[in-house]
């Protein structure tokens, strides 16, 4: 059990990550290791990060996503975000000067 995160294997090598209220994105170092452990134990090929409940992606949250993505890459796991909210996408697009390192997909049904 990782605080603030719910991980569910959804088949076909996919693991769904649902962030909860208790997630502290300002301390990614303490979270990425147990996440990676879960992914490896479940032989995951893709981490699906559900952003449905994330209203705003600020610099801290974006750094957390990048660090998680980098960790996944080391373990040969692809990271995909789904359900990014319009307001979050708008705010994030204002701060980005290059595309994010992870793939963005509309929702879980559009995963390829």
């Amino acid at each position, binding site marked *: 059990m990782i605080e603030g995160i719910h991980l569910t294997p959804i088949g076909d090598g996919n693991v769904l990550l649902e962030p909860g209220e208790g997630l502290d994105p300002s301390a990614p170092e303490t979270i990425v290791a147990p996440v990676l452990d879960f992914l490896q134990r479940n032989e995951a090929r893709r981490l699906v990060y559900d952003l449905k409940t994330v209203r705003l992606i600020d610099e801290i949250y974006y750094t957390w996503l990048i660090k998680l993505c980098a960790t996944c890459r080391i373990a040969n796991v692809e990271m995909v975000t789904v359900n*990014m909210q319009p307001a979050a996408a708008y705010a994030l*697009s204002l701060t980005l000067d290059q595309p994010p390192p992870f793939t963005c997909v*509309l929702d879980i049904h559009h995963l390829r």
Partner: protein
Amino acid sequence: MAKETPKERPTNQVLIELLMQNVGKISTIIEKQGQSIFGHKNLLSNNEINDYSLEFLELLTMLLHAGEKVDRRGPEYKALRQFFANFSQQIQVRGGDMDEFVRYVHFLQGTFLENLEADKSISFEKAREILLVLGTIFNDIILEVFHIYLEGKEKTIEAQQEELKQTSTPITEIWEGVLTLPIIGSLDSSRTMIVMEKLLSRIESDRARVVVIDVTGVMAIDSQVSHHLIQMIRATGLMGATAILTGIRPEIARALTSLNIDLSAVTTRSKLSEGLKEAFRQLSIEVSRPGSKL
């Protein structure tokens, strides 16, 4: 007992007496001039002009009765200003302009002054005081009406701008999962915000996977506009949809190159139809004529 001379009477009293003595004459002149100013363009009917003239004289008398000095915060003064505000709004609604209204207010003032000159019992000092009172009242009226006129114009311009913003960015679901966004005119920050807000909401609600942004209607492009375009494409990508940019005219392409704008990461097509073909290709949709596969 000393006889009261006109010089000793308060200014408002002199004006009230002047009005009472000449009410018939003044109202006739006002009505006649009103018909000449507002009648020829059918801005007001004769009955309306007569009603307005009488109401004005009534309100002015009430204001003068209220006290020797004009109280701008008093209900009588507010009523007179409101009367002129309504009057001017009606003139504007019917296609009249400020010139006609200001001419009319000047004429009202002039009518009083002419009658003042005719009254030989009024001293120079008193005439000066009356002139000051009338000047204050009528100048305030013109100023008030001018503010209302400007507010009206500003509201109209704002409403037109808003309507233009709404209608100039029609987002259409041209196929299931495919949205088209033709951009016409210029893209400033405020418009980009509106367009992006609408576009991202539509991507979410329509579950769109491809957005074709057509810039055929964009006449000029600068670094700010191109930055806004890239921002829009990036936000679309973050939502999980793909953006295809179409209709980049040669002069726009040249401008983008000279601005060092890198669109290599953006899918571009020459025409909207080509963009749609690309969208269909990405979604593995085949459009063919009936019987062409036979």
